[in-house]
């Protein structure tokens, strides 16, 4: 096993890797940008190397700096986390060429899977199902009707030059094809100056379901079951769960088998995720993520497997520690991403300094977080600050536990996506497991009325008054105790319950 690895990442994923490495007795070299000099990942590793620069393009994306750091510190392998250089085949190749182990798939596998056309070709050859459709435009409505037979209804007509929903029609029946083709073609012509149309199967009620796989260097491969990630907005996932609410043992085995086939077709090694679009009993290959994913913890919670440990072991050349039969699933896990976003302002990115932090705890609540008091949240990096993961005996328990955990969470100083996740958890359709990839975008979050509005108005006024008193005390401004005592005196009657007994000033 490696004695020392370099983690070419930041934030919660760098810390995630550090934790398992520490448990395995492996030393971690961390790298950090100027903005991350005090970050948890910088502090929690064994050796920290400054990369300089505040932007990713000056630090975490500079392959040479990272390779230099690895050489100088004697790291034997590089873990790329997710994002940044994790799916950069050239970097992977440079790592291997430098004589270091790459904790990820072979560069060729990254390349093939990173290319839409090449990966479709490889999957087709391997017998992995793809969304049926034509690769060339159709000439006219009659040709479309003929081609549709081989694709299957409903059919989506898409403009070749398309975008913004223009030139798109859904055809559910051959009789509708003619008129739909005509209007779509006209719309495309006038919008883009190009009337050519493609045909593709339209997936009703699409769900994003993905399968976690792991391949060793000796031909061994296992899958760890699926994750459902349909709760997303602009392709950004907010909440994931495992197992998928509509996946039974049979479908799990089928999807797992197809996912392994997809990996084998490109000579995969290490951890990866095969993403599928599921619709009404059928599933189709979407893409393969050739790295560890943000949402890997829910798979860990239900299988009991430390995926980072497995990843490190296969990268070090060891055979997989377990066979497919030894992987079992227990209960249900949910993850919510805590992003720096202002839900009330339509998910605008939020910035600020974390002044105050209350993380949830207790039974079956896992917190993977890079937050600490004093953290400045800016715009240079991914807005994800933490992930809350819960496990429950069953889905209903996991949902209630996540609600409870999010109610305990408080991030003072920066707005987060937590209220949106709470709204999702409260929706009857979500609770019934009946949701699609359209769910979150269709959810009206702005219109939500909190139940405590009168109380909040009163608290705000009393708080405002207390702040003014504190300011009025001038020299004592920094002395919260003095202010508290004053506030208490002013509020003595009401406060008797709350503070007089405590006398905590």
């Amino acid at each position: 096993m490696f004695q020392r690895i370099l983690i070419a990442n930041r934030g919660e994923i760098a810390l995630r890797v550090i934790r398992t490495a520490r448990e395995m007795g492996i030393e971690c070299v961390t790298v950090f940008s100027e903005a991350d000099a005090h970050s948890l990942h910088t502090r929690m590793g064994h050796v920290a190397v400054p990369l300089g620069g505040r932007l990713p393009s000056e630090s975490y994306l500079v392959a040479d700096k990272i390779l230099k750091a690895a050489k100088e510190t004697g790291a034997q392998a590089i873990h790329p986390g997710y994002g940044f250089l994790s799916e950069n085949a050239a970097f992977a190749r440079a790592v291997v060429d430098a004589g270091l182990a790459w904790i990820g798939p072979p560069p060729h596998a990254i390349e093939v899977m990173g290319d839409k056309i090449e990966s479709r070709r490889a999957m087709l050859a391997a017998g992995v199902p793809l969304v049926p459709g034509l690769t060339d435009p159709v000439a006219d409505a009659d040709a479309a009707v003929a081609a549709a037979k081989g694709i299957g209804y409903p059919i989506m007509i898409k403009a070749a030059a398309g975008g913004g929903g223009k030139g798109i029609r859904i055809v559910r029946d051959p009789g509708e094809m003619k008129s739909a083709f005509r209007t779509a073609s006209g719309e495309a012509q006038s919008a883009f100056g190009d009337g050519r149309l493609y045909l593709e199967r339209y997936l009703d009620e699409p769900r994003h379901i993905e399968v976690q796989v792991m391949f060793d260097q000796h031909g061994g491969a296992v899958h760890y079951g699926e994750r459902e990630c349909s709760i997303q907005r602009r392709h950004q996932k907010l909440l994931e769960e495992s197992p998928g609410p509509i996946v039974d043992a049979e479908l799990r085995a089928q999807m797992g088998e197809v996912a392994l086939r997809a990996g084998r077709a490109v000579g995969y090694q290490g951890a990866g995720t095969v993403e599928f679009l599921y619709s009404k009993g059928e599933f189709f290959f979407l893409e393969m993520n050739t790295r560890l994913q943000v949402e890997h913890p829910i798979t860990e919670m239900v299988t009991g497997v430390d995926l980072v440990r497995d990843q490190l072991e296969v990268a070090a050349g060891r055979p997989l520690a377990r066979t497919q039969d030894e992987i079992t699933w227990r209960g249900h896990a949910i993850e919510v991403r805590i992003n720096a976003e202002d839900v009330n302002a339509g998910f605008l990115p939020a910035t600020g300094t974390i002044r105050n932090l209350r993380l949830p705890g207790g039974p079956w609540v896992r917190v993977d977080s890079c937050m600490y008091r004093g953290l400045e949240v800016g715009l240079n990096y991914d807005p994800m600050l933490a992930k809350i993961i819960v496990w429950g005996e069953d889905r209903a328990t996991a949902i209630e536990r996540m609600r409870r955990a999010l109610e305990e969470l408080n991030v003072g100083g920066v707005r987060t996506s937590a209220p949106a996740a709470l709204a999702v958890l409260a929706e009857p359709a979500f609770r019934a497991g009946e949701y699609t990839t359209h769910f979150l975008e269709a959810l009206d979050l702005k219109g939500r009325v909190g139940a405590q509005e009168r109380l909040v108005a009163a608290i705000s006024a009393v708080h405002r008054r207390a702040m003014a008193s504190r300011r009025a005390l001038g020299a004592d401004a920094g002395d919260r105790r003095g202010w508290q005592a004053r506030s208490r005196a002013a509020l003595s009657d009401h406060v008797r319950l709350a503070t007089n007994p405590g006398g905590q000033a």
Partner: protein
Amino acid sequence: MKYFVEINGRPHEVELTERLGVLSVKVDGEPLDLAYSEVDGLGQFFVLSEGRSYAVSIDGEASELGVTIAGALYDVHIEDERERAAGAAERAAAKQGGLVKSVMPGVVVEICVEVGQEVEAGQPLLILEAMKMQNELVAPHGGRIQSIHAQAGQAVAMGAKLIQIASLEAPE
């Protein structure tokens, strides 16, 4: 003292009266029993009201607060009587005109209007990119573009002046 509180856009009036060292609270004319105390000096508060207890977090300064109770975030705008009086005149003047500021730090991708152009409420004024997402800033009300304080490609801070719209009916 009276406070004018807007929560998620809805207005409330809170009256605090101190008598013999005791503070009573009225919200929209109805009394509310409330005990408030600070816990950690960092933003955690404990509130008892009408027989129930609340772990409250308060965040923000001056007139813009974020109050969180059990994960539910309330966006609060608060003014006392003096601020209200001062602000009222200003608001009246700006009723059909005003300044569009950047709602977040980012980079201006495109300016969609020109000085002198008439705009309607809701019309896109410029596109701001932050964290790889593009966001349209729209006119809060109709008017004529009076001045533009940014240009495409420029990085702007949160709250930066971007575009000034003048009222059509009551030019100043």
